């Protein structure tokens, strides 16, 4: 029905203009909620990037016997490097280990003074594609037949900071749960608020709705313009949220990325991901508007 589509849109737009206060109420409600959600999404994204970065530093150290034969060492490396879970295997010679030790302990000269010769072993450092496979991989290394010929004591000399790793995963999970929970709560809050706003808007026009019914308008004829209006308001709210978040982003990104206080977690910011986030916000706005008015209408437009 071509005429009706025209009628509905015209009607929705007219109502929007006529009931300026009501409409702007709904729009600001959507916009504010989406701004908060967007900000939290952004922070969660940054936090996730940060955690990924930390996780990517998880490594397995295999300390080698001083007297392990060179051929066996090479064989071990060739085996491990071919596993699908493994990203990279580095060999650290005794000399390099000592250099690193000296750097690490440069503040404790009394320890270094007492160092005789080079007591440090050579080692492999194994990085994984997915840090969560670290325990499985360690087990697999220990099961290798070759391992006993290269490592003195396979229970002590294969290390991956087990305590540190499990604690990190626990934090990661806690933080994701908390962030997800807050975002869900806020989506719920905004949905309730928008339903409320639209319900109020409909409530304010309940007399008009009654009149329409008396003149013979069918329920859908009355409902559709309200739905359209909700969608318009949601979309407008989403657009405003995007605009404001964009401005905030432009204003603060320099101080976040280049500034002092977060410099220790320099995170690569993906422009594409940011764009996707904005698109998600706009769509959420539209969805919220549609769902909100649908809920509001259900209550008030019984015959």
């Amino acid at each position: 029905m071509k005429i009706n589509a025209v009628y509905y849109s015209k009607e929705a737009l007219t109502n929007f203009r006529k009931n300026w206060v009501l409409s702007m109420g709904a729009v600001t409600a959507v916009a504010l909620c989406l701004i908060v959600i967007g900000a939290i999404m952004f922070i969660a994204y940054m936090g996730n990037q940060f955690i990924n970065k930390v996780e990517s530093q998880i490594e397995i150290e295999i300390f080698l016997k001083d007297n392990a034969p060179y051929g066996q060492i090479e064989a071990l490396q060739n085996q491990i490097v071919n596993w699908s879970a493994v990203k990279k295997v580095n060999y650290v010679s005794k000399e390099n280990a000592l250099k690193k030790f000296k750097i690490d302990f440069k503040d404790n000269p009394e320890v270094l003074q007492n160092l005789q010769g080079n007591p440090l072993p050579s080692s492999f450092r194994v990085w994984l594609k997915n840090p969560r496979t670290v325990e499985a991989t360690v087990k697999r290394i220990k099961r290798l037949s070759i391992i006993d010929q290269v490592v003195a004591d396979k229970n002590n000399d294969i290390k991956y900071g087990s305590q540190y790793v499990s604690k990190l995963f626990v934090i990661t999970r806690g933080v994701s749960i908390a962030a997800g929970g807050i975002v869900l709560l806020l989506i719920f809050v905004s949905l309730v608020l928008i339903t409320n706003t639209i319900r109020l808007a409909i409530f304010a026009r309940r007399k008009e709705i009654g009149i329409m019914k008396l003149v013979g308008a069918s329920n859908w004829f009355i409902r559709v313009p309200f739905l359209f209006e909700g969608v318009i308001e949601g979309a407008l709210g989403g657009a405003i949220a995007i605009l404001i978040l964009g401005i905030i982003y432009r204003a603060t990104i320099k101080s976040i990325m280049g500034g002092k206080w977060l410099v220790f977690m320099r995170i690569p910011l993906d422009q594409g991901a940011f764009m996707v986030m904005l698109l998600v916000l706009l769509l959420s706005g539209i969805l919220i508007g549609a769902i909100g008015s649908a809920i509001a209408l259900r209550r008030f437009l019984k015959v």
Partner: protein
Amino acid sequence: MIRLKHVSKDYGGDRPALTDISVNIAKGEFVFLVGPSGSGKSTFIRLLLREILPTQGDIYISGQDIKALRSWKIPFLRRNIGCVFQDFKLLPNKTAFGNVAFALEVIGRSRYMIKKQVPEVLRLVGLEDKLDSYPGELSGGEQQRVSIARAFVNRPPLLLADEPTGNLDPATSLGVMTLFNRINRSGTTILIATHDREMVDSMRKRVIALENGNVVRDQLRGVYGYED
């Protein structure tokens, strides 16, 4: 056209608004519904529009039991009934044109038809220069005339009018009555609730008189009655 069978309506007050009303109105009739304030005239009309349901009894319009009507069919009933409401019931955010046009939009008339018919009907009630005024910008009588125009713009087979001349001066009232008469002659059934003694007396149509919710008189070619 209209058949009421032992209809009562009780709002829950001291006494019912209508008690055991049985009335038949044939197609093409012109009927005045008279009675003192609070006697149940508006209630009678609201029952026919299925705005409210009777507490007892059955109501048939064009042979259809409107009590048993499925809720999604109600709009279609109402599209066949033009109604002038006592309190006008105009949409405040539509102009006079928009309010009348709405009755046509609802039944899916084309924009061309709307653009043609609405100004014509508003001219008939003498509002050709108020097309773009909102109800808040119209005088009481002007609002009433918009309401009248809306009621018969889509030529419904049944026209109900609650106090259509309450806010009109005698000259305009006469014009409106002439209009109703003309509409009636084209076959439309008309039911008018009114206090306008002059009008009723001069028209000599069928008069149904209510009092305290009872039909006390049903007279062909009747007068307003109720001598003071």
